[in-house]
């Protein structure tokens, strides 16, 4: 399984701060498409994916046991 962490607007849209998904083998780009269908998240185009606390590229592939996070545009500071 893969743990998917949700923050900010995604957390509110999903009503939870994390979900387990079974999508090992997908690329980051494929994960985004899947998430759009599955959760109807609205603003994924501007959203980064972090894999194990590191920003990922669109072509990176998910492995079982990864911790994935959706990172919408940040607004700290």
């Amino acid at each position, binding site marked *: 399984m893969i743990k998917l962490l949700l923050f900010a607007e995604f957390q*509110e849209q999903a009503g939870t701060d994390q979900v387990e998904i079974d999508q090992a083998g997908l690329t980051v780009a494929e994960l985004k498409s899947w998430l759009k269908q599955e959760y109807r998240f609205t603003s994924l185009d501007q959203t980064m994916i972090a894999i194990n606390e590191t920003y990922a590229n669109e072509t990176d592939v998910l492995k079982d046991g990864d911790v994935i996070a959706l*990172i919408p545009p940040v607004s*700290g500071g």
Partner: protein
Amino acid sequence: MTERLFDIQDTPLSMEEVVGKVTRRECGAIATFIGTVRELTHGKRTLKLEYQAYKPMAIKMLEQIGQEVKEKWPGSTIAITHRVGTLDITEIAVIIAVSTPHRKAAYEANEYAMERIKQIVPIWKKEFWEDGTKWVGDQLEQTAYPKGKPDVKEEDND
């Protein structure tokens, strides 16, 4: 060292504490930036803010910024603490303290760190207005992630 130079905390921030982390006998200049909750933005009244962080990754990104600063301004020491949770008007959201032997570098490094926080550190701000709420993105008013991802490599444009 036991104290964290880079931290995320859910309790009020202390200037003295963050500045204390960078005070060194060989440094004569400490530039500090304190970001506080502003009541009015573009004429709209903010009631309060909420900050949320992906804490372990946010600390890693702050540490990366610290590394960049050390490379760009040798001899500097930087500490950053960011608040999370609900903040009232005038409360402190972030403190950046940079000490350097001479002052010019302290200002420059501080400003650089603040820019980088707004680019790569996974922290989000929710505005509470009288007529609604919103998670804010893209504060730099640039197209979000023009390269498809935040520029986590050191910036070139300096």
